[in-house]
């Protein structure tokens, strides 16, 4: 399908996906409530910082950091890997392949159309954070910071989504790639700044993490939201993030194209 056809189809696809996300709002709400990990870790770090600050972080900084983590997590989550695994197993991927548009656009629109609902959830958390720790620790302060933050959230989502597609596509080679997705999630939890700010890690580990994609999924948007970087550093990090978006995109599309050739649905 050419670019013009895609542009014509996308608004309709987004409308359908949005209607779906509204229809399943209760379910989404439960998913949001089960994002407890930032809060679990916030409590731990608050206890740690009670007597004296840890590095640059006092109790208020931790509250700001982890509430930001909660909000960013809502905006950057993707679940295409599980969906692809399921559809490959059930054979329903065939229905998507019949459409004159790549299924990847369908998965993406499912994700993107959830944004408005997710913003509705993330916003009160951000407001709460402002009320608790003050605007300077909870949200960007200058226009350039807001701009870079939005770019970083988009990039974080793109990496997460494309990694999901890449791992999901592996299910076409391996029957099921769910375990692999779990391993990816573990690495994400440990390396991304989801459970603790990455700056607490020892120097050597941090260099490694700077080269891995995980930090750019979560840590970078959160750091930009809580004003941890000056302009040059922020620009450098965002550039690295988008390098990962491109790399992950190439990997995901490549794996998908090879994998789909192997797809065989039952029935007929």
């Amino acid at each position: 399908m050419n670019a013009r056809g895609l542009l014509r189809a996308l608004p309709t696809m987004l409308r359908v996906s949005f209607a779906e996300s509204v229809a399943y709002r209760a379910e989404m709400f439960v998913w949001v409530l089960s994002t407890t990990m930032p809060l679990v870790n916030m409590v731990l770090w608050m206890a740690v910082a009670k007597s004296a600050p840890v590095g640059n972080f006092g109790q208020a900084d931790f509250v700001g950091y982890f509430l930001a983590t909660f909000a960013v997590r809502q905006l950057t989550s993707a679940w295409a890997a599980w969906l692809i695994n399921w559809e490959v197993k059930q054979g329903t991927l065939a229905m998507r392949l019949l459409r004159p548009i790549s299924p990847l656009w369908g998965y993406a629109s499912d994700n993107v159309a959830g944004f408005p609902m997710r913003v509705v959830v993330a916003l009160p958390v951000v407001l709460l954070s402002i009320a608790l720790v003050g605007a300077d620790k909870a949200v960007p302060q200058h226009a350039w910071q807001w701009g870079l933050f939005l770019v970083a959230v988009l990039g974080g989502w793109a990496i997460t989504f494309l990694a999901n597609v890449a791992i999901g596509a592996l299910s076409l080679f391996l029957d099921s790639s769910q375990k692999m997705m779990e391993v990816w999630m573990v690495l994400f939890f440990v390396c991304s700044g989801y459970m603790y700010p990455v700056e607490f890690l020892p120097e050597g580990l941090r260099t490694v993490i700077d080269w891995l994609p995980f930090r750019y999924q979560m840590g970078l948007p959160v750091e930009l939201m809580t004003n941890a970087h000056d302009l040059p550093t922020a620009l450098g990090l965002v550039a690295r993030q988008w390098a990962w978006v491109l790399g992950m995109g190439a990997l995901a599309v490549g794996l998908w194209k090879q994998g789909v050739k192997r797809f065989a649905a039952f029935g007929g």
Partner: protein
Amino acid sequence: MVRRYLRLLTVQLKASGLQALQYRADFFTDGFTSLCWVFTALAPLFVVYGSRPEVEGWSFGEALLVVGWFTLLQGILEGAINPSLTGVVEHIRKGTLDFVLLKPADAQFLVSTQRFLPWRAFNVLTGLGLFIYAFLLLGRGPSPLGLLTSLLLLGTSTLLLYSLWILTVSAAFFVVRVDNLTYLFTSIFDFARWPSSVFKGVAKGALTLVFTYVIPLALMTTFPAEAMLGRLPALSLVGAVVGSAAFAWVARRVWIRSIGHYTSASS
């Protein structure tokens, strides 16, 4: 009566066991993912204790005991409790719970024992490994009395987990779509990762109250760890035993009530 149920339990266990033997490779993949997830519980502790020798009166080795209990209970939850009760939700949704209710045995017993995933027990092994590592770090062993108490508390914790689960599943009779409620349950259980005293400083102790009395997570992991260290007050022990018995009783009542609300899919 008791003998009949014991025989039923063996039959159900055997069925699950045979099923698990068909997927022997799962032992390794489940084991590997279990080790990975344990790492997510340990990583924050490594980072925290890199900067502090002690947090809220817990040293690294002691906090490790809590993580050990958390992992062990997660093994029980995922291996013995979750699979069966996810099955109930499926039964309710499809209306096939009829077949269970028709059988001449207690329905709660039948649904709670319908499926076990023995390979998930790998988490239990990991938990035991963490205990050994923790006591090596502490440079002493647990006292025999402490071990005994912690075994008793393992019983009460399992009972508590199971009762909380029954309560969650009972909700399925009213709202049906609860497969992600089960996920919610597992994520709330994540709060049991740390020693419960870290909650003291938050919201003026309100969280401590919630996690001791409303959702008794503190009882499940922190109490057994304290028992192993030999510093659990006798009163807490009595409280844990009485409390979990009361919880189980309430859960049973609620289950019986909710099952009255069951309407089969076709009628």
